[in-house]
């Protein structure tokens, strides 16, 4: 690809045409909700089992691809394996025993599609993908966590997923965020990067355009001729008039814009790990706002040499926008308009690639930010088709997940044996003709252990004991938030340009209170719970891509075998007792397998473990459950 993005000329037109369109985040959202054609009705309205069938696009592509490469793909997985894989992928936890049983006896031919639709409607979907979205943001920084309020960031992310906000709307909420760290989760996007224009620009390209530009911070990228230092800082100039303010050292401005903030949710609701929950944010009040003045030079907000000229905002591979500050839109809004433009294919491609990586472990490029200007992605034709459709479906993430999970390539068996011939093996991998097996991430492991032992598989509900005092505080906080927003709105209207309001929610759109089960967590109160937190390391708080925990493989295996989570899960539940009470050893064996692995035992397993639960003691049932929880089958998917 020679020119990085071919659409800079479009920008001016877009900017002019979309002033009204983009003036508020709400209008953006509203516009997206309009159905564009009959074909794009939300698929939930279709009868169960029927979709508009973009999955077929994937299937047709690979059928042709495999035929051409003369490869026989792996067989499609059985129902039990499908349920486990889909559940871990879509909900971040294995299915419970009852669900397994009813799914296995269901005889409807379209039951897999129906199950996926049902999963997408559960609140657990938002719990899990809220974590994913939060983790995508947190992992953008090499040194994670410092300065972020990860609770509020999660709060925002979960809400966005629960409402199934479009990916463009989410991009807008982040790129154009204004507000405080402790009340506005999306404002973490700016505050996390301390308001540094180049870091915000870098984060924008990695998260939303799927490409890294940071190598060009200090020099032209020697690997990619089109990426220059000028281009890097020119992109940063879009954030030249966005700034972080804080109470300490900038108090007056902060207090003027955000008076009487009250106590935030983050201080009311303590996450597991207490202070660590807010990741070094230490209760400091910080906010991200637009300001009227501000320039970016090569190297930062100040010129390095006295001849240096301020840079005009420069879209990647485009032309500088000389009159950016004469536009009605702020610089950031102009960036947003360019990033999320329907004709910008990179935005869609990055999202499609990211979701394939999340759901199948394979991407069109190796990482979520792995697109480069000079290399073609794998299976580019399919990527383009899906990106096109994702755009046409108004960047609907659930649609994308449904499309991938319903496709054949998601439902292939993993190859249990490596092809001895290396060339052949490489070819099989390149053509995605079997599934990629991955170890569970920390969230998936934690919740699946709880579920396998019959405990509530929701980390948030381990202790739900919000005191009356705490609830009063919640209500005070909400009231205070309303006042604060009204005041902030008023001040801004009086003194500044109207456009500043774009990212501030109106008082009417103040999100509903946090559900009760999210209000208070008492992990630190019990030794075992505290240790479970320790064991996961700060995994639940800070995650980095595929990294599972700060533990190495040895420490992780020790945790899985001897740790408090598994120990207590086997001890503090009635499941072993109720399974032990079943009549025959065969029934008991079946029950243990379904409970932990979500499938019936295979004949050889029945044989080799025939004596294991023959006597019907609960301890032996627990021992067998332990053994099943240690299998590579349980620990991967």
């Amino acid at each position, binding site marked *: 690809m020679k020119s990085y993005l071919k659409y800079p000329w479009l920008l001016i037109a877009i900017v002019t045409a979309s002033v009204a369109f983009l003036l508020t985040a709400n209008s953006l959202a509203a516009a997206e909700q309009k159905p564009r054609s009959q074909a794009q009705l939300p698929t939930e309205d279709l009868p169960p089992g029927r979709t508009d069938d973009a999955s077929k696009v994937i299937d047709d592509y690979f059928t042709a691809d495999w035929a051409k490469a003369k490869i026989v793909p792996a067989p499609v997985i059985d129902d039990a394996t499908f349920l486990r894989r889909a559940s871990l992928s879509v909900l971040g936890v294995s299915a419970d025993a009852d669900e397994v049983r009813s799914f296995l006896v269901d005889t409807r031919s379209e039951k897999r599609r129906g199950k996926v639709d049902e999963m997408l409607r559960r609140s657990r979907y938002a719990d899990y993908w809220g974590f994913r979205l939060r983790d995508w943001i947190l992992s953008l920084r*090499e040194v994670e966590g410092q300065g972020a309020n990860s609770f509020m960031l999660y709060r925002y992310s979960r809400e966005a997923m629960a409402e199934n906000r479009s990916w463009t709307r989410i991009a807008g909420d982040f790129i154009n965020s204004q507000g405080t760290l402790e009340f506005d989760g999306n404002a973490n996007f700016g505050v996390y990067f301390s308001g540094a224009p180049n870091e915000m620009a870098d984060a924008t390209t990695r998260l939303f355009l799927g490409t890294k530009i940071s190598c060009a*911070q200090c020099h032209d990228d020697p690997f990619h001729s089109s990426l220059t230092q000028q281009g890097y800082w020119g992109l940063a100039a879009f954030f030249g008039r966005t700034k972080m303010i804080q109470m300490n050292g900038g108090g007056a401005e902060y207090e003027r814009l955000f008076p009487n903030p009250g106590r935030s949710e983050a201080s009311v609701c303590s996450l597991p790990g207490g202070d660590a929950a807010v990741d070094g944010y230490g209760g400091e009040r910080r906010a991200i706002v637009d300001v009227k003045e501000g320039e970016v030079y090569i190297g930062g907000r100040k010129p390095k040499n006295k001849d240096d000229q301020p840079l005009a905002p420069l879209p990647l591979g485009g032309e500088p926008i000389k009159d950016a500050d004469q536009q009605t839109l702020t610089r950031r809004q102009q960036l947003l308009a360019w990033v999320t433009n329907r004709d910008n294919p990179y935005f869609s491609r990055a999202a499609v690639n990211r979701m394939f990586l999340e759901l199948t472990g394979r991407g069109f490029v190796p990482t979520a930010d792995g697109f480069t200007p000079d290399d073609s992605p794998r299976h580019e034709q399919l990527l383009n088709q899906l990106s096109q459709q994702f755009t046409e479906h108004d960047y609907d993430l659930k649609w994308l997940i449904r499309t991938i999970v319903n496709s054949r390539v998601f439902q292939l068996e993993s190859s249990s044996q490596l092809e001895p011939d290396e060339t052949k093996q490489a070819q099989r991998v390149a053509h995605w003709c079997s599934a990629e097996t991955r170890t569970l991430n920390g969230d998936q492991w934690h919740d699946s252990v709880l579920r396998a032992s019959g405990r509530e598989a929701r980390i948030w509900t381990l202790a739900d004991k919000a005191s009356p005092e705490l609830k009063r505080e919640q209500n005070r906080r909400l009231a205070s938030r309303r006042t604060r927003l009204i005041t902030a709105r008023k001040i801004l209207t009086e003194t500044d340009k109207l456009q500043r309001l774009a990212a501030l929610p109106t008082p009417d759109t103040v999100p509903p209170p946090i559900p009760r089960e999210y209000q208070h967590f008492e992990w630190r109160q019990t030794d075992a719970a505290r240790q479970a937190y320790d064991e996961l390391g700060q995994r639940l708080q800070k995650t980095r891509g595929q990294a599972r925990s700060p533990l190495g493989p040895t420490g992780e295996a020790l945790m899985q075998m001897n740790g408090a989570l598994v120990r207590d899960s086997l001890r503090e539940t009635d499941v072993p007792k109720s399974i032990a009470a079943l009549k025959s050893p065969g029934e008991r064996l079946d029950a243990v397998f379904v409970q932990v692995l979500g499938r019936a035992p295979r004949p050889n397993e029945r044989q080799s473990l025939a004596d294991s639960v023959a006597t019907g003691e609960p301890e032996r049932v627990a021992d067998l459950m332990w053994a099943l929880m240690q299998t590579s089958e349980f620990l991967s998917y």
Partner: protein
Amino acid sequence: MACFKLQHAAAAGPIGAVTRRGMLRVSLGAALGTVLGPSLPRLFGGEGVKAKHANEKSVILLWLRGGPFQTDSFDPKLLGNDKLGLKFEPMDTTADGMQLGACMPRLAEQGHHLTLIRSMRGLEMEHSLASYYMQTGYRATGPIQSPAIGSIVSHELGPLPMRRAEPDGIPPYISIGGAGFSAGHFGSAHRPYLVWNPLRGGENLGLPQGVSAAAQARRLAWLTALEAGHPGGHGAAEQIHAGRRAALAFMQSKQRAAFDLAAEPADLRELYGKSDEFGQGCLLARRLVTAGARFVQVELGNFDQHERHYPTHEQLLRRLDRGMGALVRDLDDRGLLDQTTVVAVGEFGRTTLINKNLGRDHFINGFSVAIAGGGFKRGFVHGSTTKDGQEIRDNPVTIPDLLATICYDLGIDPNKEFNDQFGRPIKLVDHGRVVREVLASA
């Protein structure tokens, strides 16, 4: 702990050491000489590494989280300026001309073992960025993940030779009291094994409460039967199996006894501070390197006192003094100091001027590091700060310089290049200059 003591004797005893070292020299020399030709130093690149002792050495890093105040500890100044708000006068040590702050009496007794560098220069002012820089030698910019010094040492040297006969004993890199740092492009296998609390022993190393040995045997037998049905072959299963193999070997290894602090004489435990987690962490670190760990980090914090500096800071410095003083003495008594480098450093220092909240802020231009043992000089001070302690006067040492020097002393070429996760060649340490002045034989 008879087995442990035996092992210890063999490891430290001159006969065992010489024989093993000799054998190693012969076999390594023969292999390289016949197959590759060039001498070892040339193989490693420009720095001419002394590979002879390299394989016996280990490191104990006392990680002073939050940034300790140098002027009360390793770079004391005379009182007399009220603005500085200093509390501790300089105190003579057993080394000629070397003084320490008066709150460090026990380290003062070990002065003849110490190398002090008083002219450290940092670049990052914020904790997480500065910690990353001190640990990796790289500034946290861009998408590259760099390995921490513990991971570098673990990756380059692996376990100590004494445990090669039992390959899955103690992991080479252990972090006590803190989560440790990124293994960067070396991957998760080079992350540290974590010990959250030294008094509680190795994390998850023992069977869970209420699980008998018989039950464990039964569980493992069933697990073996279950896994036999699934040959694996794919990457995830391999990774899980390898982790479990190492974990089980670790659980069953003799070296596990190293975690049992109760095996130490009561007076020695007292010397380290019997109820102090940091002191006991130092003692555990000594036991672990004796049992074969290559790099042990013990964390002490939080030194970050921006308000009311003294009560907390003094307490922390006294704990450092007791723990490190005991550790250096103990290693010396056992004849282990030559092969064990003890390094005490935080991510930066603190301002000499006391602020309006009676606290001290972050300071990067002239803070100190204390080193004892290994190939470092004994009773030596390198670099100095100005009279008011606010600037470096001579011999500035950068953070990459420090890491390069530690690597060099261990026999690791700091300029060795690696391909990072994007396939680009990067050096182990970013442009560090080996500070030969602080090394005994360089």
